[in-house]
């Protein structure tokens, strides 16, 4: 069991996590956050292994990982 939390307000929608995720679970949403960016979101929390690659590559420390 693993879980990630994306701090939406912090996300700048760069999308680097979408290419780092080993299971391609991350996509950019269509919502616009208060900074004006479209934040990342996880499509299927159940499939997350907690490898933390998304958090490692995030330049904005917007992702926390629990495992």
């Amino acid at each position, binding site marked *: *069991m*693993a*879980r990630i939390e994306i701090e939406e307000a*912090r996300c*700048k*929608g*760069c*999308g*680097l996590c979408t*290419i*780092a995720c080993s299971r391609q679970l991350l996509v950019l949403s269509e919502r616009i956050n208060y900074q004006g*960016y479209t934040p990342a979101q996880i499509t299927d929390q159940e499939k997350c292994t*907690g490898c*933390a*690659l998304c*958090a*490692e*590559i*995030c*330049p*904005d*420390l917007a*992702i*926390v*990982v*629990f*495992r």
Partner: protein
Amino acid sequence: MQQVFKRPVSLKDVQTHFCPGCHHGTIHRLVAEALDEYGVQQRTIGVASVGCSVFLYGYFDIDVVEAPHGRAAAVATGVKRARPDSFVFTYQGDGDLAAIGTAEIIHAANRGEDICVIFVNNTTYGMTGGQMAPTTLVGQKTSTSPYGRNQSKDGAPIRMAELLAQLKGVAFSARVAVNSPKNLMDAKKQIKKAFRYQVEGKGFSFIEALSACPTNWGMNPLQANERVGSEMTDYFKLGVFKNVENL
């Protein structure tokens, strides 16, 4: 469940001003993790440069001195000599270190000052709007090379990590990138190694970190990230160019 990924304590819990997809944020974090690893936060004095990383003092929870453009290695020399017990690192861009600050970095390295230098190479002057830097790749269009860098007129891009590795005073020199999980994990390792040199009082260490500047490259963050892993690493090879103590 436990939290397995945390912000390093040496980094303040604030949002940065960096553009989306800029690697400065990632490199900041890796430097902060290395400070945490050696427990030197309380005795660290960072030396900031002029460029997009100018707000070092706002992002790191350490003492920071702001150096005039290009002079960070000279300022760090003074800081370390006046306070030999402190842990001193500079954080400089390529416009700062490899253009206006060439004399300072070469002589600090040659003297073998006991400091660490983090050199962020994004092949351009980010803060001022993307002018050509000594590291701009041949053919790369910038605001001051609108037809692309011309090697016969502008010279070839300088490879600082290799150049400094030739100096006797340099103990450690490596080039890293943070564009992929694999490169990022290696970057962590090399930054920690570089810091270990100073922690053990073993001399001057240099890290060149390749970095994306989507804004001034006219690319989106994913394209810019991809450029780091292709065009940039083709010319600026990743690796360790010197490691005198084999740490």
